[in-house]
């Protein structure tokens, strides 16, 4: 089981921010979340949304381990 974290507007779209999801790959995890909630799937694929696995930004597909922390990060805005 991977732990999925949603930040910023993504958690508002989904109605949750922290969930366990069973998935061997990031691509499969995206597909699973999109199947369950098309609006969330669209938001996750939106411009500027980055993914961090175990707090490291990744690009492209990658295998997930049991206990992987997968964070979806929309465009950032501090200060």
């Amino acid at each position, binding site marked *: 089981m991977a732990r999925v*974290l949603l*930040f*910023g*507007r993504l958690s*508002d779209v989904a109605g949750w921010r922290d969930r366990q999801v069973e998935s061997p790959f990031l691509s499969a995890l995206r597909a699973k979340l999109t199947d369950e909630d098309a609006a969330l799937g669209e938001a996750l694929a939106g411009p*500027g949304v980055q993914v*961090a696995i175990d*707090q490291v930004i990744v690009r492209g597909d990658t295998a997930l381990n049991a206990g992987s922390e997968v*964070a979806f*990060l*929309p*465009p*950032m*805005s*501090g*200060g």
Partner: protein
Amino acid sequence: MNVRLTFETIDIGAILSDFARGRAEVGAIASFTGLARADGGATQILELEAYPGFTEVEIGKIADQARVRFDLLDLTILHRVGKIAPGEPVVFVATAARHRRAAFEACDFLMDYLKSRAPFWKKEHGPDGARWVEPHDRDHADLARWED
């Protein structure tokens, strides 16, 4: 070098006094304080979300870049998270260098990075509801000034 997130009100005077104390080699300390803005009543509360752990590490990378680029002797970054009322500090940055130009420029550099590269998500709550704020074109243009 100190990078910290806080849910508490930032006491700028106390932090700046501590930061300036006992410096024999520092000739210049510059600081920047960003406040939550009411925008004529459109924003009643500003809400900042971070990714604890990740956010501090990412800001630390930016701080390291600033330290090397401007030959800083020290710096401190304190950033609020949670709900913030207009007029309260959102972010405080102080830089210590041998000479003023480096201290000023490092503050400017750090703020440009914090605005659009640091892992924070910002929501404005107003009379018409809440909305997420994303970086403006202006923020990207500010950041581009530092690219070689």
